[in-house]
């Protein structure tokens, strides 16, 4: 008995992507295993660590808590879609590099998604607002200090 497959069409990083997926395939697994967009990471699969954060219709959500079938007809943005239109690093990505806002890189895509969404809504956030925005993204390497610096740097550079 094979599982029923569902046809889905999702706009991922601006590109229409089609798929035939089992209902239980999570959005993060679809992105990683089928689309081979391995930038989004799996850390807990129960909605706590935030490593799987993606933009769903422009807002950060936990892609381990969504099934790919649920994304049918929606827009998904991943870390791979963050780079600048010219192909270089976005101001935020560049600021992370400058301020050493990462070490092992595993939480980084999720952090970038959360931080970019914050900057899109609040171009000049306070430190408190930054911590609130990344409060759902766990990091074990950085103690968050240089991540906050990176977001502040990106905000400052956009003035």
């Amino acid at each position, binding site marked *: *008995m*094979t599982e029923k497959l569902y046809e889905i069409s999702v706009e991922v990083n601006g590109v229409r992507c089609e798929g035939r997926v*089992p209902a*239980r*395939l999570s959005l993060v697994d679809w992105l*990683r295993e089928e689309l*081979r*967009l*391995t*930038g*989004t*990471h*799996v*850390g*807990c*699969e*129960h909605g*706590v*660590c935030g*490593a799987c954060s993606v933009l769903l219709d422009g807002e950060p959500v936990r892609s381990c808590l969504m099934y790919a079938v649920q994304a049918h007809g929606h827009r998904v943005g*991943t*870390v*791979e879609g963050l*780079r600048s239109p010219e192909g270089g*690093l976005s101001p935020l*990505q*560049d600021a*992370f*590099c*400058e*301020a*050493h806002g*990462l*070490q*092992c*890189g*595993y*939480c*980084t*895509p999720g952090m*970038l998604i959360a931080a970019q969404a914050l900057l899109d809504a609040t171009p000049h956030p306070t*430190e408190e607002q*930054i*911590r*609130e925005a*990344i*409060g*759902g*993204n*766990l*990091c*074990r*390497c*950085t*103690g*968050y*200090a*240089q*991540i*906050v610096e990176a977001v502040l740097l990106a905000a400052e550079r956009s003035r």
Partner: protein
Amino acid sequence: MSEFRYVGKRRRAKEHVRFVLGRGRYVGDIHVVGMQHIAIVASPHPAARIVSIDTSAAARAPGVRYILTGEELCANTDSLLIGVDAPQVKRWPLAPGMVRYAGEWVAAVVANSRAAAEDAAELVEVQYEPQPCVVEAEAALAAGAPLVHPAHASNVLYRRKFVWGPVEQAFAQAHQQLSFRAYWGRSATVPIETFGVVAHWDAGHGILDIWASIQMPKFPDQTARALRLPGNAVRVHHDVDVGGSYGVKRGIKHTVLAGYLARRLGAPMRLIEDRLENMRGGDMQGPDRHFDVHVAFDFDGIIHGLRIRALDDVGAYAGRSPLQLGKPVGAICGPYRIPAIEYEPISVMTNKTPQEAVRGFGQSPTNFALERAMDRVARELDMDRIEIRKRNLIRRDDFPYTIPSGSTYDSGDYHAVLDKALAAARYPELLELRDRTRANGKLAGIGISTCLEPSGGNSAFEVLLNPKNETTTWMDSCLVRVDLSGAVTGVIGNSSSGQGHESLVATVLAEVLERDPEGIRVVRADSLMALPSNSPVGSRMAIMLGGAAAGAAKTIKRTLLTIAAHNLECAVEDLEYRNGDASLKGVGGKKLTWHELIEIAHRKFHKLPPGIEPGLQAKFVWEVPTGGGLPSADGRIQMYPCYAFEAHIVLIEIDPDTAKPAIHRYVCGHDCGVMINPDIVHGMTYGGIAHGIGAALYEQFAYTADGQLTSGSFMDYLIPSALEVPPLAIVDHCTPSPLTEFGQKGSGEAGYLGAPAAVANAINDALAPRGASLDTLPMTPEAIWKALR
């Protein structure tokens, strides 16, 4: 250090670009055609005999390829190595006949997808006959306790009483004594990426390829040994990005399991722990340590002697975990001039998940106990806690300083770092703030800790705790190549988990060769091609990998000068090396450029001096400084070579009604000698502090009385977020090490080694006006509330 061009300067890490683009290559990103997926069947019982395993229903489930049980695996692989002398304590990836902890792996299902494997795993029927279990360390010591490994005839894995210096006398003669108990609760590093491995048996070449999220010395060797393969039949790929480890990712059992199945079934195997498997059955929990501390001191606060009994519960099996009682021997008195120490480490087994190496390898729990001792003595004498430390801290002029247990501390200026930290914390103002807060009805406390971070990974605790294991080689290496285009490439033989080793090596090569680090590439050799490495542990790579890179670069430089001297018909001493060019000293001297020298090396054999090999490459393999020794009969040994130092100052407020703590200011004074890349060092220190805050206030692997783990997911194992970790300030000091190339000391464990002690001391300072105290980690709101009643 302004004398350096690249070392010590702020510089972007080479690793960053791939990570911010989402183009890291973690084990979960690796696809091998035909890859099968493994899911685990785990024991629900903490102790049980396996009566039978019926795999028939599971084998018929869709997509299932095979189901492996302990019976087959244990017959065909060797048991995994244990760090102490306990040959009857055997461990395999799957339980052989007996399960010893809830979560222990009993069977492995192989299927064409992870989902299918999990479906089938639920259909495997295991009949168990539960046995009595023991889940408490002291209970495990008691006569008549259920034996975790009956063949070992005891639950004690290791026990010894070390006496260094005149302990009896110190206690007999001191003005006062005090005693207390402290408990470092079980927590661990819990990286955001779980452990994973992909194993592929390449039948065409007879090689087992391994990609793993690994941080482990001797990983290729131990994998080969367990699988009964020669070393050169296992190829570990070190160019896998590891999503954090901080010690724990010693996934030897996962790898042996996957490797066995890969060969057995002739298909590539992927085993990525899910979070539930990882927390309960990944065998990566951490120290679980009860301290009994006795201090002998005088009225003026001088500590004359210490007695420490450290009882550590390693869980149901042991790899290197008992050795975490041994490493602290190298800094058993912390940064203090304590002349007489008795240390009784006891490693005991219970029916809990096994422990693995956690950042600091036992030093952080030890520092916690030492710092609680200092504060208690200060309180007893009504003496300022800074003053008592200043009176006991080893002085700048005392270095190099040899402690009673045999280690010599290379260099330090502890008073200066403490003063810097106090200044940065604006200590008098902090005291006022604390007192004002108290006056407003809240509880508030300042915590201070002054702690050592031994670095360099001379892991002499191995032979100290197990004389049969005469391992004294703690080496690392680097190969450097300069190609025909003049580009420099460094080759290393280890995996990295965020420490920035590529940046470290590029910076060092750039410094010595005087070439731009931007153009220097660092690549990783697999285990068949790599020079010897003992992997990044024990804060060793700045010292060891940095030293190896420097050594290889110096050889290249000497070769270039030799080529130049030969072609310029002079002596090497007559030449000046600048940015890769060699020129005759003096005005208008002839010179040969970097590119000209390289052309000669690679293409113009007729211009090459005799004895110089063609091409331009050098390797450097070296032993850890101060290493190579064996312990004395009374257990004295040089442990790590270099000693970094940290002074933490933290202000904590506690809501007097809810008992919930909040950190309001955090300063860490840090001295790890010369920092090769300050941002990288600071980064790890911030992370270590956050990690320490987690261990002190939030994180615990909690067990019920009947051996069930209640914090087996992130809903209950509470990792601090950006809302729990406050802004952190680091203030640097530099006392270079005399033992290393640039004066650098290691620093991967920074912050974690002093933070729990400082936070614990702050909580106690806050509780003190109420006559309460707390010596158990984690200090949860409930624990604080209970202490206040």
